[in-house]
C-alpha cells in the first residue's frame, strides 16, 4: 500500500527513527563517558536529534504555522548558550583541579 504521506519520497517515520537512534547514542555518551567534554558532546547530539524530530513533525503535520520553526530556533539558541556556559565551566574546573573527570568533581562532598 503506497502511503501518500511522503515528502520527497520519504515517510515521516524514517526521520523519527534516525532521531531516536541519535538520541539513544547521545544518551549513552552522556551517561557512559569519563570526560566532561565528551559528556557535553553527548548532550549536543541529543539536542540535535530533538531538533530534527521537531522540524520533521512540523514539516509533515503542520507546515502552515510558524510554531515549529520558532521552537526549533529556540532550541538552537539554547544549545549554543548551554555549550558556551558548559565549556566555560569545564575550562574553569580544569584550571583549578587539572582534571575534567566528572567523578573527581566532589569538592562539595563532605
Amino acid at each position, binding site marked *: 500500500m503506497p502511503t501518500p504521506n511522503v515528502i*520527497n519520497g520519504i515517510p515521516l517515520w524514517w526521520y523519527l527513527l534516525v532521531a*531516536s*537512534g541519535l538520541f539513544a547514542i547521545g544518551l549513552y555518551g552522556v551517561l557512559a563517558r569519563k570526560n566532561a567534554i565528551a559528556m557535553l558532546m553527548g548532550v549536543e547530539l541529543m539536542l540535535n536529534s530533538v531538533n530534527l524530530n521537531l*522540524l520533521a513533525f512540523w514539516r509533515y503535520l503542520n507546515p502552515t504555522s510558524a510554531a515549529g520553526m*520558532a521552537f526549533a530556533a*529556540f532550541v538552537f*539558541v539554547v544549545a549554543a548558550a548551554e555549550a558556551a*556556559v558548559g565549556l566555560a565551566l569545564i575550562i574553569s574546573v580544569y584550571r583549578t583541579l587539572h582534571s575534567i573527570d566528572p567523578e573527581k568533581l566532589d569538592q562539595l562532598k563532605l
Partner: protein
Amino acid sequence: MGITVQQVIFVCLAAIVLGAALFVVTTRNLFRGALMLALAFLGVAGFYVLLDLGLFAVAQVMIYIGAISILIIFSVMLTCGMQAMIPRNAQAGGVAILAALLFVLLALVFGPVRLTLDLTGVPLLSTLFRTETPRVVGDVPWRYNTQAVAETYISDFGRALVDINQFLLPFLLIAFLVDVVLAGAILIARQRKPAEVLAEQQEIAAEEAAEAAALRTAEGAPAMPSTAAATVADH
C-alpha cells in the same frame, strides 16, 4: 514504487550521522571525536535540506559547525583531552542496555511496525502503543499535511518572531538569555590576574591561620587552670 534519489540520499545521510555519532561516543581520541561531531552536525543539516528547510540547514551549519564545534575543539585543546583517555566509566554496560531499550521503545512507538498486543488498561503503554490508522499518540491523531512549504516561509517566520500575538515574548526572553549567558561564560572562564589570585590566596591563608588559632584557644581553655596554677606556684 521504485527507489528515489532522495531515499538513497536519506539512507546515506542516516548512515553518516549515526556512524559519526557512534564514533563520537566511543573514541579514545577526543579531538577526532570533536571532528566527527562536526560531521554528524553536517549530516543533520542534510536532513534539513531534505525537509525543504534551507534556512535551518544554513543555521545548523553556522551555529553548530561554525560555533559549537569550534568551541568544543578549542576546549579539547585547552584541556588534556587530546591524549588517549579512558573512554567509558564503570556504568557503561548498563547504560548501553538502557540506551538500546530506549531506542527499541521509541522505534516501537514511531516505527512502521505496530504492536498487536492488547494493552488497554496498562496506564502508560496503552496511550503510547495504539493500533489505529491514522496514528494516534496520546489523544491527538496525526493529520498529515504534506503540502509544500510556502515560498515566503523565511519572512513569515521572521514576522512571527516579532509579532506580539505570536512569539515576541519568547523571542525577547531568549535574547535576554543569550546576553546573560555570554556575560556569565566570560565571567566563569576569565583568566584572573596573578595579583588577584595572590591576594585571594593570602586571604584564605589568613582565614586558615585565624581558624587554627581559634581552635588552639578552644583546646587550650580546659588547660587554662593548670597553667594559671603553674604561674601562681612560680610566684
